């Protein structure tokens, strides 16, 4: 998945792992980031995503594609009130948007961009 433009994740390519349960689509798929990402709603170590539609707000009408869209939307609009990444959440909640963006950009460069050097 490509990082959405005009975000600190722009230019990055993020790998996701989808685990589709047997009861899908009655049960939501389990999705996590394989690529490291600095985002308040993504666990920095495990890549777990805190997204309501992957938990209690799941509807069988959703598809894997719509889940991808939702994740892209989440990357563009982080939700610092339910943080899995406390550092990132704290930066945003304290209003340090510049600090958050530079951190996120740095990790995108480090983890999500093909190495050139």
């Amino acid at each position, binding site marked *: 998945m490509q990082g959405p433009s005009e975000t600190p994740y722009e230019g990055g390519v993020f790998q996701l792992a989808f685990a589709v349960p047997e*009861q899908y*689509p*009655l049960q939501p798929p389990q999705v996590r980031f394989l690529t490291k990402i600095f985002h308040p709603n993504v666990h920095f170590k495990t890549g777990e995503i805190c997204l309501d539609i992957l938990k209690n*707000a799941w*509807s*069988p*009408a959703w598809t894997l594609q719509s889940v991808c869209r939702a994740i892209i939307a989440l990357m563009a609009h982080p939700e610092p009130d339910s943080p899995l990444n406390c550092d990132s959440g704290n930066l945003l909640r304290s209003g340090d948007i510049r600090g958050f963006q530079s951190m996120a950009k740095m990790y995108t460069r480090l983890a999500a961009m093909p190495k050139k050097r």
Partner: protein
Amino acid sequence: MVSDSVTIYSSSNPKEFAKKKRVNRSAKLKQCKLDVRREQWLSQVKNKVCKVEANGQGGTVDLGIERERTIVKLESKPMGEEENEESINNYISDTESLVNTPTSHSSSVLGRIGSGASFTGSSCHSSSSSSSGHCCLGSMSGEDEEGDDECLDDWEAIADALAATDEKKELENDILDSPQESNGIASRMGPCAEATNHMLSGLDLSQLQKQESEVNVQRASVSNCRAWRSDDAFRPQSLPNLSKHFSLPMNRDPHFGIGDEAWNYNTLSELTSCPICTEDFDVTDTSFLPCSCGFRLCLFCYKRILEDNDGRCPGCRKQY
């Protein structure tokens, strides 16, 4: 006579009638095509009648109304269509006798008018018999639904029958010129010839088209009636709208079944399968609307959502 043939068909195919419930939807689609086919026949008859005498207009207009009613009844109540058809055919044969009775009287006095009027009568016959053929098709469609192969196997026999049909048609045309005894023969010829044709139209429309064009050549009074263009004045109103008409592949596609499927897919793509399990909807599922938001799913998934999940509509998250 006509109603007799109907009774024979309906009684000889009780099995198909039972099957029809299952294949109701696809039968409906075929019905639509057959209606179009019938319109074509009727317009040919109309042309003829208009040429012969203005007297003929009344008969065809009556039939037109009758036809409309037939179509309406078929679409509103496809389950009991054979009964409907039967009653309609009875009605038609009543009107026939009405048309025919004064004919036989007057023609004994005035041979000229008699010939015109008997023409009207026979056109009534052929069109009413076309609805009888149509009726038998109602049961036929059930049959050819599960076995296109069967139909193909029978093709040779049908081709023979068609040749015979063409001869009959010729005979009929000759007979129509002589006033008196034509009614009886035409009424005997009409139903079987038309019924054969319509059975065939259920089997393979494009083949019929070919045969029909031969018949058209024989019918010298009729100009090219192969198909309607969208701007054609004789194009009947009951034809489907333009896009549908174009997507109907029946005039070009040699494989009837495949064309039918393609049509299905084009027009009903979002309705043919359950969005949850991706299984195709069956007849019950198609008419199953569990939620006011319009989100549709098959009964199996509905049951699973009610029992195993929270019982809320996947489309709008409202409680079922």
